């Protein structure tokens, strides 16, 4: 239960961001009614096919409508306006990543191993290392059967990462930081929406 105003504001904003996915379920069911009674198909395999195909259809619709969305226009306007200090690095790095990504896509699977191997050894220390990593890692293409592939750093790294996802202190700290940020940046704006 959130007690302080800061926490309540944070909670309100989180609700607002989370509604995206709740909306998705509603929109998709309205758009493709087959999602309402998918159980007409007997087998689980058929249900999985239906679900994934509906997702693909939905994405195709989103892609064709995308230019009309307010969010895209807002995003484009914001990036043209100019950014805060210290983010100049981001432009060229992003461009390089995009370029290498495209190159990767053309090459297909052949480049995947090399790119992944180059990317793995540096586990993203500082921001500079991260950026260098960003350029060299070159966006490996999405793995089709990701579950079937063993983790790159062996099972030890997987267990470490698993522990990391359950790190309570880190979670609390991140939440505290976010709460402080939201309060300072949006506190006044959201004041009227917080009950």
């Amino acid at each position, binding site marked *: 239960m959130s007690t302080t105003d800061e926490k309540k504001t944070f909670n309100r904003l989180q609700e607002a961001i*989370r509604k995206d996915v709740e909306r998705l379920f509603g929109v998709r069911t309205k758009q493709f009614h087959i999602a309402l009674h998918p159980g007409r198909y007997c087998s689980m395999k058929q249900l999985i096919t239906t679900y994934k195909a509906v997702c693909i259809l*939905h994405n195709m619709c989103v892609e064709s409508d995308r230019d009309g969305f307010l969010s895209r226009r807002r995003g484009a306007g914001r990036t043209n306006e100019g950014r805060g200090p210290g983010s100049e690095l981001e432009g060229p790095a*992003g461009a390089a990543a995009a370029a290498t990504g495209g190159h990767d896509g053309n090459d297909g699977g052949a480049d995947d191993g090399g790119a992944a191997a180059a990317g793995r050894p540096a586990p993203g220390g500082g921001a500079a290392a991260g950026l260098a990593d960003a350029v060299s890692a070159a966006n490996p293409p999405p793995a089709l059967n990701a579950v079937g592939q063993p983790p790159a750093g062996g099972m030890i790294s997987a267990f470490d990462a698993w522990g990391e996802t359950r790190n309570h202190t880190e979670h609390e700290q991140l939440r505290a930081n976010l709460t402080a940020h939201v309060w300072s940046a949006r506190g006044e704006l959201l004041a009227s929406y917080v009950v």
Partner: protein
Amino acid sequence: MRAARAHRRRHYRGSVPGRRPNKRRDCAAGRFNIQRDYFGVNAEPPIIDDRNFETRFHVPRNVFRSIYLAFKDEPLFQQRINATGPLQAHPLQKFEAAFRFISYGDAADLLEEYVRLSLSTVAQATRILLELILRRWESTYPCSPKQSGMKKMMERSAERGFLGCMCSLDRTHWERHQCPTGMAGAYQSRKGSRGAVVEVVCDEDLWTWKPIFGAPGSLNDNNVLNQSPLYLDVTAGRWPPRGVTFTVNGSTRTLH
């Protein structure tokens, strides 16, 4: 899959002695109606314009067109000639039927009146269309964002005031009417019916990725997350991409 279809074909034996003759469905009328209503015939404009097309099919015209062009020559959809001579259903009819089935959830035999296809053809066309869509676009459409896309998404969520947020993740239950009784215990979902859990990740404009389906309905969200490919990808270091950083309240973190 082909072997499976050949095996199943025994169910549809077709016109053989001893079976009821085919109905006089007048396939050509179905095709003519669809073309007149949605695409226009004899150089006349279609009766139903673009906006209504989208409300009717629940997909924009260009999406329908690209799917039609991609699959119209597939064995099930191409127009065939009956053993007795007349032409059988046009691909347009089968697409119309399948799309109505997908977007309206119509009963398959309701479509017999307008599209002029039999119940079994409609069901088969829908099933095959969904399979074809999946096979053709599975690797391109629901793929997870890479580094540049991830940066853009983080920027957008930072604009909304939530730093370091990539996307929203949630699950819902899909009912499974025809669940075998033996598995009813595992698939018992929280609303009292049999169901399976659907997990999806989406961003602000509802672009979805990592759609996962199939966890039994009796699992809670935590258990579903633990076995979902998304979580396995994160722990195995395949996703999210490295080198994406964000700063909250003075402390910088990496996503990975």
